[in-house]
């Protein structure tokens, strides 16, 4: 690990000021320290934000939930309100990492974790995300785990989070504060950038901008599930995952909020897929049409070609499950 200067932040003011000057925030550290040991990341200064009071889950006035950025993945997954009213989020969190990691990983850090693309981790290989302009080894390399949607010729990495996929389906909003004290609210789609020609830029967050909370809107009617397909039954990243919130009324679909993980550089959501489903009577033909729409521009790179049919089957299976359950 390269040497760094270490600061224990006493307030968001000092933390954001230090970060605006080039320091990097550290919270749980489960991803950052892994990358620092490999020297994939080498911040000259770390600001430890663990002592900031951002570790509470509070109910909002409109029946939603404000989740502090330092709430651990365990505390969020096990919160009785989340388990009852936003089960897709609890399920997504419990499907991720291990018990030890969930006890340390935080809400803000989970959102900002880096890709697990093997070439991003391997400093001997070209990677535009790690070293802009060096090229992408993954496109013609071992890309089994990588993206089929939203890629660019410069990067085909996926965002590895399960939690963020569920939050995307739930229309969660990220709250931030900058070093000048100004705050802003971003929905998850606006937080993340597609790789384009600058895959090293992953979010719209500015230097010194700190995620303080994630806000869940009030719970909605409908069934929720998180389906994760991976190479082993536990403690593995998603090859494909689907977070679904589906409501039915009089035999027709009235809500189909669907987000996808393991297939794109950010938690993926396609409004056209949802528009195609809402108002319709569930059928396998309809679900196949939804998959056609979702995958219209999908592109495999050889080893990850299987993700196209896998995404299709997972989506059809999730929709079948959620609409069947809603009918009973």
């Amino acid at each position, binding site marked *: 690990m390269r040497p760094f200067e270490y600061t224990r932040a*006493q307030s968001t003011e000092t933390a954001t000021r230090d970060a605006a000057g080039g320091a990097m925030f550290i919270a749980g550290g489960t991803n950052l320290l892994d990358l620092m040991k490999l020297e994939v990341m080498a911040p000259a200064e770390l600001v430890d934000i663990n002592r900031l009071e951002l570790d509470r889950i509070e109910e909002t006035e409109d029946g939603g939930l404000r989740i502090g950025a330092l709430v651990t993945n365990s505390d969020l997954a096990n919160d009785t309100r989340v388990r009852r009213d936003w089960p897709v989020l609890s399920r997504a969190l*419990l499907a991720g990492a291990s*018990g030890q990691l969930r006890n340390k990983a935080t809400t803000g850090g989970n959102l900002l974790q880096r890709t697990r693309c093997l070439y991003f981790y391997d400093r001997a290989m070209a990677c535009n995300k790690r070293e802009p302009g060096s090229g992408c080894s993954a496109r013609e390399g071992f890309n089994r785990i990588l993206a089929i949607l939203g890629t660019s010729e410069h990067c085909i990495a996926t965002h590895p989070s399960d939690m963020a996929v569920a939050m995307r389906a739930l229309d969660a909003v990220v709250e931030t504060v900058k070093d000048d004290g100004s705050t802003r609210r971003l929905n998850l789609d606006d937080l993340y950038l597609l790789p384009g020609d600058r895959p090293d830029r992953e979010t719209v967050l500015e230097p010194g901008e700190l995620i303080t909370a994630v806000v869940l809107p009030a719970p909605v009617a409908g069934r929720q599930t998180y389906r994760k397909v991976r190479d082993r039954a536990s403690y593995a990243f998603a090859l494909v995952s689907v977070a679904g919130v589906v409501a039915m009324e009089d035999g027709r679909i009235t809500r189909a909020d669907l987000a996808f993980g393991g297939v794109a550089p950010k938690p993926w959501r396609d409004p056209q897929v949802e528009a195609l489903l809402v108002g319709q009577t569930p059928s396998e033909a309809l679900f196949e049409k939804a998959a056609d729409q979702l995958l219209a521009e999908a592109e495999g790179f050889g080893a990850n070609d299987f993700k196209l049919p896998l995404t299709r089957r997972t989506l059809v299976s999730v929709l079948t499950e959620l609409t069947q359950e809603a009918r009973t």
Partner: protein
Amino acid sequence: MPIIVGPNRFRSGGMLPQGSPLPAATYGTLHAYHGLLLQDRINSETFPVQTHLTINGTQQRLELDPRTTLLDALRHHLGLTGSKKGCDHGQCGACTVMVNGRRINSCLTLACMHDGDEVTTIEGIGQPGNLSDLQEAFVSEDGFQCGYCTPGQICSATAMLDEVRSGWPSHVTDDLTGDAALTTEEISERMSGNLCRCAAYPNIVEAIRKAAEKTA
């Protein structure tokens, strides 16, 4: 002496006082930063960060290079070698300890991030002649072969059983709002952060089940 760069601000990369054990965090990286370390050596300064930890009930005051992981602080600075370094990347669980009652990977956290925290290691769980229920069950059920992963397995399982008692669900729990029965599937899922390369898994699961029944 700690170099205070600013309030609550410390710098890593300095020389340790003579005679100090070398933080293992620097193993394997020394060659790459020889120049940098040499420069610090010329300055002959030390830049440790002060950290107070309560380890197995005993207060410890440490002055560490900020790069020192909690695992390296335990093993190399406090001589508590029960916690093992397997992968050093949070994948194997051999380094599992409890911090403020929660199990974590001690290799993936910096010691200086835990100022004021209470750490329980395998040395704080039981002693020869006074084993915990889990330790006894690992012996009676033959829950290990080489034993390298065992301290992590036992620290992890100790905290895991507390999680179950607190009503935490897992990925394989059917009803998120109900209690989970401690089935083989539940134990395997909840212990998936601890690998055993000898593959003593069936006996580890049995040991945990036996200990859970005894404490229930």
